């Protein structure tokens, strides 16, 4: 057989030098999809902790930052094979790895319905079709259609060009900041339409409210930074990799934090506590209501930003979920059909359609059963995110355990940091589970099987995963013969960089 010349210079992962500063900045912002995250989460968070919402926004970033360090170092061991599923399998064996993969795929599946719903709702509001939003049938049919169309685009492998994405994401962040500035200006100029309150430094205290509402809000806060770690992972593929990537990661973080905190401050200040209390039942639409109040005739700008952000995110969520399924199937952790690659489009079509199918079924069920579907599914989602982030943090420390004592840098960034992050998330997880097991603490006060709905959803998904795992363990034991490994100490240099 002839030589395989081409494969020698196959880059692993991303193409080197393919990404500049702006792209790296945008990727960091895009991965978290700030406009959608804010629109989805700001209402519930404000309903939970009131004026301390900005503080919660800041505090939730801490575990994310620590876990991002774990992602960064695990990415260096295994650039070929992606994320949580393969890393955790490598560090802690097949059982933990499988559950991590399940959690990551399920988070993708669960959020798609909410993304599409927000995209549809905010688009309708932007075009002044408010009546359609209140009609559940119309909204749900449109949402299912959006999921189907976006999935078809993922299967075909069509993506917006990088430049269009850059423009869109920068425009979204600009819209959010404009909203914050206009709202705050009107607060100080006393031209607000509501009982506004002037911001105070105290709002930045995350522990201001305390108790069950604080843990619930912090858990939601984890959701808004979800995906941020992918910005950190880009580092080596960026042009001028000595400076540009680090700068881009730092800048995307600053932009993100400034956006979240300033919008949270603006929302609380402009609306005032009475408005927020009066509209507590409407928290799905608090952001839309406020955009309307603060921006007047220009509110469609903010609404459209949220809608495009959610729409773009459906694609960036479906693809990783289907690729995780692909990756699991390729290692025989899932049935072989999930590994199928469509010959024409070269995408994992079976996994992708499964993701969409489960997402649609899930969306329809939750929106039929739940009084506050968005809040319940986001909270359940946050439980899963906290679980797989904590698992990744733990995996990092476990995998590098023999190299932690090589330097203070290793001990802090590879060992202690990820462990503390994992510990914080585990604490949030346990606290929230305890709180939610009392339905009185759940947001709507509704009980499913005697406990809060998000807990039923979260535990249900975890249990479904365990059952599927055991069944597959006995049907196809191949994956379970994988053994955990460990990073051996480096003979000379403690660090690669």
């Amino acid at each position, binding site marked *: *057989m*002839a*030589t*395989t*010349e*081409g*494969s020698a210079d*196959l*880059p*692993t*992962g*991303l*193409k080197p030098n*393919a990404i500049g500063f702006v792209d790296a900045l945008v*990727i960091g912002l895009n991965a978290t999809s700030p406009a959608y995250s804010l629109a989805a989460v700001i209402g519930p968070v404000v309903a939970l902790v009131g004026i301390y919402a900005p503080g919660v926004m800041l505090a939730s970033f801490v575990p994310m930052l620590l876990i991002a360090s774990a992602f960064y170092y695990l990415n260096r061991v295994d*650039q*070929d*094979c*992606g*994320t949580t*599923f*393969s890393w955790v399998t490598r560090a802690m064996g097949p059982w933990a790895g499988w559950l991590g993969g399940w959690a*990551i795929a399920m988070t993708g599946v669960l959020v798609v319905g909410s993304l599409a719903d927000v995209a549809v709702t905010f688009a309708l509001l932007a075009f002044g079709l408010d009546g359609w939003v209140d009609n559940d049938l119309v909204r749900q049919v449109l949402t299912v259609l959006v999921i189907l169309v976006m999935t078809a685009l*993922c299967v*075909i*492998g*069509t*993506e917006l060009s990088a430049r269009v994405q850059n423009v869109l994401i920068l425009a979204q962040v600009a819209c959010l900041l404009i909203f914050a500035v206009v709202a705050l200006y009107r607060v100080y100029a006393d031209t607000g339409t509501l009982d506004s309150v002037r911001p105070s430094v105290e709002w930045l205290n995350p522990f201001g409210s305390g108790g069950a509402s604080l843990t619930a809000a912090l858990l939601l806060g984890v959701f808004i930074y979800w995906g941020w770690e*992918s910005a950190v992972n880009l580092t080596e593929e960026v042009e001028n990799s000595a400076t540009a990537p680090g700068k881009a990661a730092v800048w995307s973080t600053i932009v993100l934090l400034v956006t979240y905190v300033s919008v949270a401050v603006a929302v609380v200040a402009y609306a005032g506590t009475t408005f927020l209390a009066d509209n507590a039942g409407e928290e799905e639409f608090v952001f839309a209501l406020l955009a309307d109040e603060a921006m007047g005739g220009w509110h469609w700008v903010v609404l459209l930003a949220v809608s495009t952000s959610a729409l773009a995110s459906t*694609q*960036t969520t479906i*693809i*990783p979920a289907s*690729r*995780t399924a*692909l*990756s699991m199937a*390729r290692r025989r952790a899932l049935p072989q059909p999930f*590994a199928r*690659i469509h*010959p*024409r*489009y*070269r*995408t*994992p079509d079976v996994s992708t359609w499964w993701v969409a199918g489960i997402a649609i079924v899930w969306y329809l069920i939750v929106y039929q059963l739940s009084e506050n579907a968005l809040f319940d599914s986001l909270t359940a989602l946050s439980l899963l995110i906290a679980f797989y982030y904590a698992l990744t943090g733990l995996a990092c420390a476990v995998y590098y355990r023999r190299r932690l004592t090589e330097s203070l840098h290793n001990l802090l960034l590879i060992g202690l940091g990820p462990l503390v992050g994992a510990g914080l998330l585990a604490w949030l997880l346990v606290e929230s589970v305890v709180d939610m097991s009392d339905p009185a603490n759940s947001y709507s006060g509704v009980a499913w099987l005697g406990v809060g709905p998000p807990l039923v959803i979260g535990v249900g998904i975890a249990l479904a995963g365990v059952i599927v795992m055991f069944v597959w363990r006995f049907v196809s034991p191949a994956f379970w013969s994988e053994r955990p490994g460990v990073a051996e100490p480096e003979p000379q240099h403690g660090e690669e960089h």
Partner: protein
Amino acid sequence: MTVVLGYDESAGSVRALHVAVEVSAAFGDPLVLVYGAAAPGSLGEEYAAHHQALVDAGRSALRHAVEVADEAGVPTTVEIIDEKPAQALLVAAARHRARVIVVGSWGESPMRGALLGSTPHKLLHLSRIPVLCVPTEE
């Protein structure tokens, strides 16, 4: 000079393989077999798993193509390039000083091809050297 063929085991490319083998034999040129392994959607988690799946698919496709060419006594070179198919063919054509690029078409309507992105369609516009487009058999 060489003959460059894009091969992915689709019906069109199987026929294109036979045409390319004939062309290579006629000119006495070696045949360069190309598979573009870039996954659609270059960013995001588990990209590498997707990419690796495509590289595996490309390896197995090209192995079969090499067997066919070997039988006809045409010397071959295999290129798995981390670009999308059309771009991969252009890269390989430049690298191997190609006389002609041979590709199979899916025999789709022009509208479908334009919407879904068709490799022959892109090549016909982008390539600086002749492109031989082979339709699927009836």
